[in-house]
């Protein structure tokens, strides 16, 4: 199924898809977590993956990140053939999983410097990323283990922002964030897409996620079930559930 929603900039139609999977099979042990999934995502989209537990959302995100090998079918991400060169795509990917991917014993600033520095983000980029997620400067020199779960999540997202990935892959990105944090994240995703990056995220918080996304893809049994285009533009207005 092709994700190139109506209303999308016409230029994008001439660009190669960011994600291009066709009958893709990914095995976890012997279990086909992706069982012939077909999906194509053009640049600049924000795609919500919707599906029940075990549908294959996380496996799809990890496969796009080059962390899982493709067993059968065709799979290209950012032009890289994932069957032969899945490692080459990785520096261009920003993956936010369930973990914070931060070193507990390092400070917030140290973590930003290490992960951001790996892709050439300078100190100004790192500071701007922390400010974008409204991580208070008084926390910058605090070790990550002393932060609350929500603050850790904000820092983890700031790391992604500093790395400026071309493809954002987010697994339950709103989890652990307060309402303000969710609004900031939604705003960042919109800004990233507007700047030409592509965002694919899985979420069970559909009220909020469907406001951010321009396309919803339903996944079940390791396959794409349906793709639906949504009107975009209400992201960042705080329409999701208030769980401060």
């Amino acid at each position, binding site marked *: 199924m092709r994700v190139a929603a109506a209303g999308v900039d016409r230029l994008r139609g001439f660009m190669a898809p960011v994600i291009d999977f066709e009958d893709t099979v990914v095995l976890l042990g012997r279990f086909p977590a992706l069982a012939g999934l077909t999906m194509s995502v053009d640049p600049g989209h924000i795609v919500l993956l919707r599906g029940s537990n075990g549908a294959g959302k996380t496996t799809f995100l990890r496969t796009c990140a080059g962390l899982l090998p493709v067993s059968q079918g065709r799979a290209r991400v950012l032009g890289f053939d994932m069957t032969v060169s899945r490692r080459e795509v990785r520096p261009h990917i920003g993956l936010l999983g369930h*973990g914070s991917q931060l070193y507990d014993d*390092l400070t917030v600033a140290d973590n930003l410097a290490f992960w951001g520095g790996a*892709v050439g983000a300078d100190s100004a980029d790192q500071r701007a990323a922390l400010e974008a997620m409204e991580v208070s400067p008084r926390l910058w020199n605090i070790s990550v283990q002393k932060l609350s779960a929500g603050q850790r999540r904000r820092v983890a997202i700031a790391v992604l922002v500093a790395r400026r990935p071309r493809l954002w892959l987010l697994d339950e990105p709103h989890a652990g964030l307060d309402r303000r944090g969710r609004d900031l994240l939604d705003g960042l995703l919109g800004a990233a897409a507007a700047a030409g990056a592509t965002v694919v995220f899985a979420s069970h918080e559909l009220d909020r996620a469907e406001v951010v996304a321009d396309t919803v893809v339903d996944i079940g049994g390791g396959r794409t079930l349906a793709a639906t285009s949504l009107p975009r533009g209400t992201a960042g207005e705080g329409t999701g559930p208030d769980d401060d």
Partner: protein
Amino acid sequence: MMTELFVDAARVARKDLLIEWRTRVTINQVIPLGLLIEVVFAFAFDANRSLLEQGAPGLFWVGVLFAGTLVVQRSFTVEGPDGITDALRLSGFRPGAMFLGKAAAIFVELVVLEVALLVGVVVLFDVGLSDPLLLVATTVIGTAGFALTGAIYGALSLGVRVRETLLPLLLIPVVAPILLGGSRALEAAFGISTQPGWNWVGLLTVITGVYAAIGLVAFGPLMEES
């Protein structure tokens, strides 16, 4: 290309040393353990001081081996939780840079440990020093070999649930040649043996070179499998 490799390696090493500096695990736990091992040997062989003196080089490396295994273990324990292994794969660091960076940080921590253990050897085992240059060459090259080997086997055990017990089982037999060569060379450095020690330093250099080459090739695939 090579410059980037070393810049990235320095970044990884700095991160590991920063974690050590913040947590002080080597200083507060590993060094006391190494000294405790020496004290235990000193008590065990107290009745025969000449035997203790003769065995001092081997006992020094035994202390380095056991306490150093904890340094290696700690170096990779911090990479395990919270999705950090995935983040490292996605980081953009070359596997070779990660390998050299991890090994460099382990090397620095082991050198600190060894300085304390050498003082312990001199004080507890009544050992004199006859060839300081040989001592420095042996410990530096032997430690580099241990650190490089530790970085390989640390990566190997990264994704294993029982890595705390598995790593010593894997690592200690592999670094046994370093224990052997290091002990023989230190016997000459301490004036215990009249045999030439530099031949053993040559052997340590070859072992270190071989493990450096293996690590540069194997670290990437090991990280993939973890």
